[in-house]
């Protein structure tokens, strides 16, 4: 089976002994190439932990997480660093743009370190910000800033694009535009996008929805016919 991501019995525990908190317990799922996946869960359900592990920001305690042939459990700190650098693009809830750099420079920041980077201006053109490349983040609206962040993630030309509550800080309309970008990206490039959110309403747009509760997989459903973002209402 040529799964893009396969997670088997992934467990993540924080702390040791009696103080140990198990954030993820025996999580297993598989993601196929070219999928737009949504990981759904309420606050504290363990979805952020899962995101951290998938994004190579944290080590897993036991089990196995294989992303595109890379066994994350076997990587050391440096290995995870390289993994983040080459294979993952990250979109944050609060954009995390460097205020002191112009739009294009923010994208270059990521492009600079990735081996197969896309040109920064091209990436910005894709997200529809061609005219704003010389602006500073503070001169952009929230939606525009998030688009810069997406451009930054895309510019690295990663195998996997992870988004943490990408619409959390945005209004309804803007949020929709952002989600549209993700959907288009998946369709056009055939790459994988994983969106972590607590917003149940955006579920229909995904190819694959994994629901997490109490640190375990509650539901793992595939959507044969995902709804275009434009048609979703919430």
């Amino acid at each position: 089976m040529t799964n893009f991501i396969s997670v088997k019995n992934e467990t993540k525990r924080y702390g040791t002994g009696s103080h140990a908190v198990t954030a993820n317990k025996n999580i297993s799922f598989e993601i196929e190439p070219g999928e737009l996946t949504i990981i759904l869960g309420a606050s504290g359900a363990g979805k952020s932990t899962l995101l951290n592990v998938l994004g190579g920001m944290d080590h897993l305690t036991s089990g196995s997480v294989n992303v595109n042939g890379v066994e994350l459990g076997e990587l050391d700190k440096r290995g995870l660093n390289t993994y983040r650098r080459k294979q993952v693009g990250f979109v944050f809830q609060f954009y995390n743009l460097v205020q002191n750099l112009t739009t294009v420079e923010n994208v270059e920041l990521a492009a600079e370190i990735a081996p197969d980077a896309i040109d920064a201006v091209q990436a910005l053109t894709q997200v529809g910000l061609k005219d704003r490349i010389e602006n500073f983040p503070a001169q952009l609206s929230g939606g525009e800033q998030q688009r810069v962040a997406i451009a930054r993630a895309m510019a690295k030309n990663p195998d996997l694009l992870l988004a943490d509550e990408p619409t959390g800080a945005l209004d309804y309309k803007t949020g929709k535009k952002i989600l549209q970008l993700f959907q288009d990206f998946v369709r056009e490039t055939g790459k994988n996008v994983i969106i972590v959110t607590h917003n149940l309403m955006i579920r229909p747009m995904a190819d694959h929805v994994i629901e997490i509760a109490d640190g375990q997989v509650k539901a793992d459903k595939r959507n044969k016919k995902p709804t275009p973002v434009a048609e979703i209402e919430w």
Partner: protein
Amino acid sequence: MRRTAQKTYNAERLADVKVTSTVSLNAKDRETVRQLSGIKTAEFGHTTDVVIKDSQHAMRIQSNPNKLSKLTITKGRKAHATNEVVLNDKLSGKYKLGQQVTFASGKTGSTTGLKRQAYKIVGFATSTEFLKKDSLGSTSLGSGTLYGFGYVTKSAFSSSQPNVARLAFTHPNGQAYSTSYEHHAKTLTDKLQKKLNARNKTRVAELRTELNDKISSGESQIQNSKAAIKTASTQLTTAQQQLTTQLAAAKSANNATAIAQVENKLQMLKKQSSALNFKRESLDTAKSDLAKAKATRNQLSDITFTVESRNNYNDGYNNYGEDAQRIDVLGRSFPAFFFLIAIMVSFTTMQRMVDEKRIEMGTMRALGYTKGEVMREFLVYSITTAVTGTVLGSALGLVVLPRIIFRAYTANFNFKVLLLAPHIGYVVVGLILALASTVLASWLAARSSLKIIPAELMLPKPPVNGSRILLERIKPLWRKMSFSYKVTARNLFRYKGRMFMTIIGVAGATALMITGFGIRDSLNTIVARQFGDISQYDLVTVYNPNASTTAVRKAQGAVKNSNQVKRTTAAYFANVYATTNGSDTRENIALMVPKSRNQLDQYIKLRDYKSSKKLSLTDSGAVVSQKLAKLQGASVGDTINLKDTDGTAHKARVAAITTMYAGHYVYMNRAYYQKVYGKAATPNAYLVTLKHSTSKSVNAFASHFNRQEAAVETVQSRETKKTITNILGNLNNLILVLVVSASLLSLVVLYTLTNINVSERMRELSTLKVLGFYPREVLMYIYRETNILTGAGILVGIGAGYLFHAYIMDLLPPATAMVAPGLSWINVVISVGLTIIFSLMVMYTMNRKIQSVDMLEALKSVD
């Protein structure tokens, strides 16, 4: 420091001026001294230099002072009986109370001036007249420097007439070392010297008449007794012949009575003849007395009557003053920098604190606290820190540091306890600056925050907006710059204040280190260049050419016939001085007129101070040492005033200026001396280079020479060397303190600024990590700018250090010494190296902080 000295001077009532005379002071002299205007107290005393028997240790023995320059007894008691003596405190390690010490005359054919030879030690003491522990003063005996001093009762001196007077001013016009005091002392001393010169003339005239009378009466007496002896001896011879004939006649007649009569007569004749012999002997004595009187008459012109202020009669007083001045120079310039840095650091820190408390402020405002109440919280905090800081700083600055410096500095002086001066003024200034930098900073920051409505205040401060920088506008350059440098450039100009602080902090530290090391280097070069390249002789031996011919010949022989001597040349040597307008200090000058002008170069290399060309003495003027010319503001062609010890001035033209690092010298040839002084420069000294120039052999040679009757003094090159080495030793500690504080400060600046930088950019850093930047790249993202700033700081620091060093070296060295300008590259390398090491240390700590930044921070909401 000065306070300590002043207190001791006051306690011992150190004489303001001292009058010394080469002959004892008679009633009239004393009257003159007492009548001098501006003098409140005058005390007369005895002084004589002797050596400790069977050694070369020269001691100055003085009569117990009662009113002025009193002793501080450290052990035992004062001398009461004529056989008791009090020695200087330092000798308490070598001698014990109750021990006997025997003095002897330091010169052949002279007396000690004391009634007895052996004295019982009854106490040990210190005196402000002998402040310096290691160099008590110079003497004409032994090695040329005093080994110790002693105090005995007045009656222990053989002469009833005193030979020294100590005076106190009616109005001292201020404390010791104050400008007003020193100025007053100088003007008054000058006036007194004139009066004394007049008195000296009369005195010499009186002595001359006295001596003339004595000589003429002696001569006539000798004539008379010569004639008498002649007659008597003729009579005796005749009588002898008659008696011999009579005796022969009587013997042939075998007349026993006649024989007895004649033999009786012969006996009487024998008695008469022995009486005649006695007369002859007394004639010889009279003759030698006459010769002595004649010699004394010859030396009448050598009789001087000098008055000197503390600065001149008391080496220690002068040196201590100069040392204090040196500390002043350093103390004025270094703290300025420290303050600047401290203000900047506390300013930024306080502002940062207010920024961090922003949300708290907003909440308080929202809960209904007034602006004033919120503001009060910060003001109370900052005032507390400022006051605490000032109290701690004052304790450190007024008690601890002075102790360290005092200990370092007075190691050579006889001061026991440091008297700490509460410099209220400085504390107040410090407090004001501290308050300004903390309170003002927090007030300004809090005020601007409080202007914002509470609701907004509760939200985090919007990050500083990115802005265009000038560099960006230079498109070709900007386009060529690599991405990371673009980022660095943007960050550099984002916080201009911090940029300048880092540069100033690093530059200051570098500059201070360069200066600190430079001071040491420069003083070292004095020793190296002066005694390695310029002075090639070990000592100058001065004798009195007016002494009796045999004495002079013996003194000359002590130099010329010694097997210790490598080479020697005769010269005229005199101590003169110069004064500068507006300055109260005398520049003591050694005037040298070599007998043979070709040989001088083997002893002193006279080189033009600009072109380094060899100089020769000409008939058109004198060769003057560089520092003297500088102090006098004289250049080639100008004239300078050279003053004799009695203040008589002579004008000399500066024909050339020679490089000289230590001491003031004026060199003339014999013809030019004749022109300036109107008399011939009779050689009275030898410049001597010994085969072995160790201190031991130089001392031994000096004492051998000083034992000669005609010996006046020896001037050792080593002494100057020792003085400079001492200053160097004292400065080393001070420099260490300065360099350490400078380095600490630069560490603090770098740390604070980088810390703020990192804290403020936490989010940025964690984002970079999530994006997959390697640790090194993350560090460099922050540190590239710090490194550039440090580099800039170092460059600025080298420049500033160069200037600052030049400034300090202009003020710091003793007046007699001159330093070679410029810095050695080793110094620069060390200073820069240390700065780099310090910034690497900060970088290392910062790296740990940066690497421990949690990536998950990036995911959190902005707060």
